[in-house]
């Protein structure tokens, strides 16, 4: 089993891809997911994260089967 990762907006452009899939092995929190998917890319400071479509902090726990999303501050409305 793995963890699905999604990127949006300017972050998607920066990374030049919309999604990733990482192994759940050795991963305990959201920050670990970023590290596994982007080993050579520092997590930008203002990035927001969601697990299964709910906002979470970067130290929130993650388990296999979760969908983790990273995106910049939102600008709707």
């Amino acid at each position: 089993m793995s963890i699905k990762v999604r990127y949006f907006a300017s972050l998607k452009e920066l990374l030049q891809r919309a999604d990733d899939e990482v192994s759940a092995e050795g991963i305990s929190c959201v920050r670990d997911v970023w590290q596994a998917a982007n080993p050579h890319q520092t997590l930008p400071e203002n990035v927001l994260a969601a697990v299964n479509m709910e906002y979470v902090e970067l130290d929130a726990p993650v388990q296999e089967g979760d969908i983790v999303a990273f995106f910049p501050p939102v600008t709707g409305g």
Partner: protein
Amino acid sequence: MAIKIYAEALDPWHEIQAYQAEMPQLAGRYGATSVFIGTMRDFNEGDEVKGMMLEHYPSMTEKQLEKIVEQAGSRWQVLETLVVHRVGNIRPQDPIVLVAVWASHRGDAFDACRYITEALKSRAPFWKKEMLSSGESRWVNKNTDGYRKS
């Protein structure tokens, strides 16, 4: 409660009329309808803007909007709520968002409508990319605070 995401033109007044027509149980009960419509300007941060692309996170958008509307419903006495938001390519003068709240009294309608609008701007996962008249494009980093400096 209704939450709609449109990839094509949004006619807010038609949406309000159509929603009210679908809600005969509202008739005679509401004394106040508060409406916010956000429309695309042709300027932002001192630059001329000729178009905009709105991206969102499907499913999370609806989930967060539902949560916001439910929070408003628990704080104020609201009878019905309609939220419609555009995504995709938008031009100046196009409506971007509609928030409509029906309540028995204006206080609840005004306050809930404003709460939903402000919360949507800070919590619903939408992102705007502006196409400037200069030919450049840029992601909007954050919404303005929405209030004119006097």
